[in-house]
C-alpha cells in the first residue's frame, strides 16, 4: 500500500490543470479496471458506452491498453490481489494522466471496506481527480461526472429530469 501511495503521488498532476486539449478531435481516453466489486459499476459503464448515451460525442472513449489511455477509470473496492495490477496499469500510462473513481466501492470501499483481502477504496490513498459516487451511479450520472471535468454538462437531458437518473439504489 505504501508503494502504491508513493507511485501515485509522485506522478500526479498538480492543481487541476487540464490533462490535454479536449474536444471532438481529442477524446479523453479511459482505461477501465475493475478492482473487485460486484461488477455493477462496470455494467453501467458498458451501458454508457453501448450507444444509448452519446459518450463518444461527449468526448470520451474506452481503450484496451493503458499505454493508450489518459485516465485510469476504476470501479470496485481495491483487493490486495488487484493492487499490483492497478499499479502496473498506472505505470504503463503516459503522462499526464489522471484517476477517476466510479462507484462507492472505488471511492471508499462502499459495501466492501478494508478487511483481510480488500484495501477498501482509493480515498486518502491516492489523489483522485474525479469521484462519481453511487452504488452504482447511473450511466447518466457517470456521463455528467465525466463532463464536469471539462466544466460542461452533457447535451440533452440531465439526471434531474430523468427519473432513472436521479435514483441510487440503496
Amino acid at each position, binding site marked *: 500500500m505504501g508503494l502504491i501511495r508513493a507511485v501515485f503521488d509522485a506522478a500526479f498532476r498538480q492543481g487541476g490543470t487540464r490533462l490535454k486539449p479536449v474536444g471532438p478531435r481529442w477524446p479523453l481516453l479511459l*482505461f*477501465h*479496471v*475493475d*478492482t*473487485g*466489486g*460486484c*461488477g*455493477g*459499476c*462496470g*455494467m*453501467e*459503464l*458498458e*451501458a454508457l*458506452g*453501448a*450507444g*444509448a448515451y452519446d459518450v463518444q460525442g461527449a468526448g470520451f472513449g*474506452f*481503450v*484496451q*491498453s*493503458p499505454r493508450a489511455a489518459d485516465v485510469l477509470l476504476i470501479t*470496485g*473496492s481495491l*483487493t*490486495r*490481489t*488487484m*493492487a*499490483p*495490477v*492497478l499499479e*502496473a*496499469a498506472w505505470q504503463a500510462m503516459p503522462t499526464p494522466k489522471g484517476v477517476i473513481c466510479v462507484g462507492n466501492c472505488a471511492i471508499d470501499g462502499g*459495501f*466492501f471496506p478494508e*478487511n*483481510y*483481502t*480488500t484495501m477498501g477504496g482509493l480515498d486518502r490513498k491516492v489523489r483522485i481527480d474525479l469521484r462519481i459516487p453511487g*452504488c*452504482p451511479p*447511473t450511466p447518466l450520472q457517470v456521463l455528467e461526472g465525466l463532463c464536469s471535468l471539462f466544466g460542461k454538462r452533457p447535451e440533452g437531458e440531465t439526471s434531474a429530469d430523468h*427519473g*432513472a437518473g436521479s*435514483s*441510487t*439504489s*440503496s
Partner: protein
Amino acid sequence: MDAEAHIRAGAETETPWRYRLDELAWRDLVDGLKQSHLPFVGVWCDGVDVHALFLPHGVQPLAATLALEDGRYPALSPARAVSSLYERMIFDLYGAEAMWATDVRPLVDHEVWSNTTPLAASPGPAGGHKGMIAFQPSDAWAAETVGVMTGIGPATGARETPLHTALVLDGETITRAETLSGYAHRGLTQRWKNSRVDDACRLSGRVVAGCSAAHQVAFCQAVEAACGETIGHEVAQLRVVLLELERCLQHLYTLGGLAREAGALLVSSRCMWFREQILTETAPVIGSRLLMDHCVPGGVNLRAATEIGTLCTRIAELGEEIYPTLVELWQGYAGLAGRMAGVGVVNSAVLEQVGLDGPVARAGGGDCDCRRDLRMYDGLWRFTAGRHDGSVEDRAAVLLDEIGESLRMLTELGPRLGLTAGGRIDLTYPDGEGVGMAEGPWGTILYWVRLQNGRVDQVFMRDPSASALLAYEAALPGQAVADIGLIRASLGVNAAALDG
C-alpha cells in the same frame, strides 16, 4: 445403500433435513455419490464442521454434516468435480484440508492477504507475496503442455470482472486453458458472519450485479424458511416480476455483448437500446436500474408498488413493439449466426461433469429450471424446448427465447397484480437455518442461512458461476483464441460471483 440413504442414516440434528455423519459414513457417502446422480449443491465449512448440501427432489434440501478431525475431511471432488472449487475455498478461508481432493491449488488466497486462513479460529500470518500473483498450473497442465504460453486478464480494459485465463496456443488454436481467480475476492463469508439480517441482504445483492434480484430473493427465502414464515402470494408475485425483469435485462446485456464480440455492432446497440427502453420504464417505479435492494426479508421494497401492475402492462407493450423485430434482426443479420455456429460447444457430457444448469445447460440439451418447482411460479412457468447443440449460437438463441418467455410472464402478471400494495411483514429472528432458491439469469442461485441471536450467523451461497468456470476451461481447448470473449460471455463466467 444409495447416497441419499447414506445421509438419512446419519444422526438427526436440530434441522430436520440435515444429518450428522461420522467419517466412515461420509466416506461411504462419497463412494455412493460416484454411482448416483444425487444433485449436488456445494460444500462449506464453519470452522468446526463441514456441510454438504444436495437437492434430491426439486427444491427439497438434504444436507450432511461432518466434524473436522485434525482440520481435515474427506473430499467430495472425486465424486463431484465442482466440489473442488468449494474445497479450495474452504482451505483458503479456514485451512481445513480436503483429503483425496482432485485439486489442492489455492483458489482465492495468493499469499497477499493480511491474514492467511482468515476465518480459522486463529488466523495465520500475513501472506509474504509481493507484486503480481502468478498462475500456478495444475498437475495435468504441467505434465502435458507444449506450445506457446500466454494469458488474458485480469485487466483487459473491457467492462468485465477480473479473471486471468492462462492459455497454451498452437498457432491461433487454444490447446489448453486454465484460470487464475481471486482478484475479486471481497471476503463475503466473513462479511456475512454476525451481520444484521438487513445488511446481509444488501451484501447478497452485491455478490454479482445483473443477478442481484435473484440473489436477494434466494437470500430472503432462506431467512424466511429459517423463521418458519411464508410470504403472501401477492408479494411472491412481485418478486417474480423482479426476477423476470432481471432475466430480460441481463439476457439483453449478454446478447449485446455477444453481438459486439461477433462484430455485429448494429445488433449489439439494438439489444442495449431495448434494455434502456425497459429501464426507462422500470427504474422510476421500482427504484433502481440494477434491481438491487428491492427484495427484503419478509417482503419487497419498491418505490411505487401500486404501479407495478401498470408497469408490467407497459413492458408487455414495449415487448410487443420491439421484441419481434429484435428476434428477426438477430436471426437475419448476415454473418452473426455463422460467426457463433459450432463455437465453444458445451455438450451434455461436460454439463453433467461440471454440474452446470441454467440457460447454458438448456442450450446443451439439459432439462433444468428450478422455476418448475417453485410455488411462486405456479401457473406461470412453462417448459419450452429450444436449440440444444451447446454452441455459442445455441446459447444466444436460448437467451433470446427466454427474453420472450419472461416478457410473456410479465404480460400475464400485469392484470393479476392490479394495485398490489407490496410491503413487508416484520420478522422476528429465532435461531435456526433455512434454504432458499431462485432461478437467476444464469441458473439456480441458492442460499443457506443460519440465524443466531437475531443476527445472521453464517451464509453459504451457490451461484452457477463455479460450474460455469469449469465449463469454460473445458470448452476452450480446440477453439480459436479470437473466440475467447464470445465463449466467456456466453457461459456467464463471472469473477465477482465466483470469488465471493
